[in-house]
């Protein structure tokens, strides 16, 4: 489940990775049929002997009336104490992301994590990018969606190997899902891995997948103030792609305002203004990726 929005509550099927099957949307079983495989460890651990006096005044209001719970009998008499932890909540994801990064680096892959709202043109942009990158850069694609493999089918038209990850009700990809998906992808002659994240401008910002570059799309149809509305996502961007610029006139897109907003929220991001349909701006993007890929090659494997 997501720390940000609470999606994917228990009772959900775990995210599936599959190259073929398109799963129907899972029924939401909100909350009540959890299948915890009980984390309960009270009493089963550490034979440290307690010499606490039995029966001391209980200060805490929570009188856990759970008779017969299998906790070891002395537990309720133990003193309440504070344990300092100070650890990142997403540590597990970060660890797995580092593992992915090591794997990617060892293979000389340039890895891009594409993020945007639904409908800003990720799939079309990626498909056209893959086509234009050939023959210098050969891409494999992992695509995440809550359900269906429609995007995977569209992406296969580019000729690249594609693996679909259906996340069920989870609103973002996690490093672990990518780690599994990549095992199913034939990367032998590939030097770029493109990950199309679930369309969502909030939660995916928190999840490192092990990518080299975070690419955030903003289509001209979305309004110039989108970066101001979703600062965490845009702040984390290495690259911002302004997509669908062929529609700019039709939707009264204010270019100056959009660029000013982006510079405010994502001052370090490289900005490309593109149209996947007309090809405008795609050469500059292609050149940039070639440069980035060359830079990776000279870096060599980690460690």
């Amino acid at each position, binding site marked *: 489940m997501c720390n*940000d*929005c*609470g999606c994917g509550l228990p009772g959900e099927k775990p995210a599936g990775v599959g190259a073929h099957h398109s799963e129907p949307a899972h029924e939401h079983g909100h909350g009540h049929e959890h299948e915890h495989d009980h984390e309960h460890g*009270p009493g089963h651990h550490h034979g440290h002997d307690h010499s606490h006096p039995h029966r001391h005044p209980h200060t805490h209001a929570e009188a856990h009336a759970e008779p017969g719970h299998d906790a070891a009998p002395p537990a309720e008499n133990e003193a309440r104490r504070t344990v300092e*932890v100070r650890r990142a909540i997403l540590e597990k994801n970060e660890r797995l992301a580092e593992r992915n990064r090591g794997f990617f680096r060892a293979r000389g892959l340039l890895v891009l994590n594409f993020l945007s709202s639904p409908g800003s043109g990720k799939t079309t942009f990626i498909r056209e990018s893959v086509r234009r990158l050939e023959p210098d850069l050969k891409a494999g694609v992992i695509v995440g969606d809550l359900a269906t493999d429609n995007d995977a089918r569209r992406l296969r038209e580019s000729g690249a190997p594609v693996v679909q990850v259906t996340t069920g009700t989870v609103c973002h990809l996690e490093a672990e899902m990518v780690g599994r998906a990549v095992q199913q992808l034939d990367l032998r002659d590939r030097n770029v891995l493109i990950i199309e994240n679930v369309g969502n401008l909030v939660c995916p910002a928190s999840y490192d997948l092990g990518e080299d570059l975070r690419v955030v799309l903003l289509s001209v149809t979305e309004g110039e103030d989108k970066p101001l509305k979703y600062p965490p996502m845009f702040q984390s961007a290495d690259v911002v792609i302004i997509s669908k610029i062929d529609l700019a006139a039709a939707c009264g897109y204010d270019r100056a305002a959009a660029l000013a907003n982006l510079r405010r929220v994502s001052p370090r991001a490289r900005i490309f203004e593109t149209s996947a349909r007309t090809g405008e701006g795609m050469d500059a993007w292609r050149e940039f990726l070639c440069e980035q890929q060359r830079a990776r090659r000279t870096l060599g494997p980690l460690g």
Partner: protein
Amino acid sequence: MQSALGLALKQTREAGGGRVHVIRLRIGVLSGVVPDALEFAFGALAPGTPAEGARLVIESVPARFWCEACAREFQSEDLLAECPDCHRASGELRAGREMELASLEID
């Protein structure tokens, strides 16, 4: 929240604890995390675990930015920060994206 709860329960076990009474989190204002959503998710996830009935305490961490030009740090309530001296937008975020399990009260 599942990750937070998982980490809390693991730490509790490792400390030889039984029940969790208080979970303290530090959440940056720029982390994208909505405290209400955390509370809601905690309520859904905790029952049946040793953290059932525990109190969730969320400390909000303000955003702190670094201005390269003025070589100074500044805090901002606004998520889009401008240096109060030179009024340039700052790219370097020094704090405010934390999602941290700070401490636990257990027995």
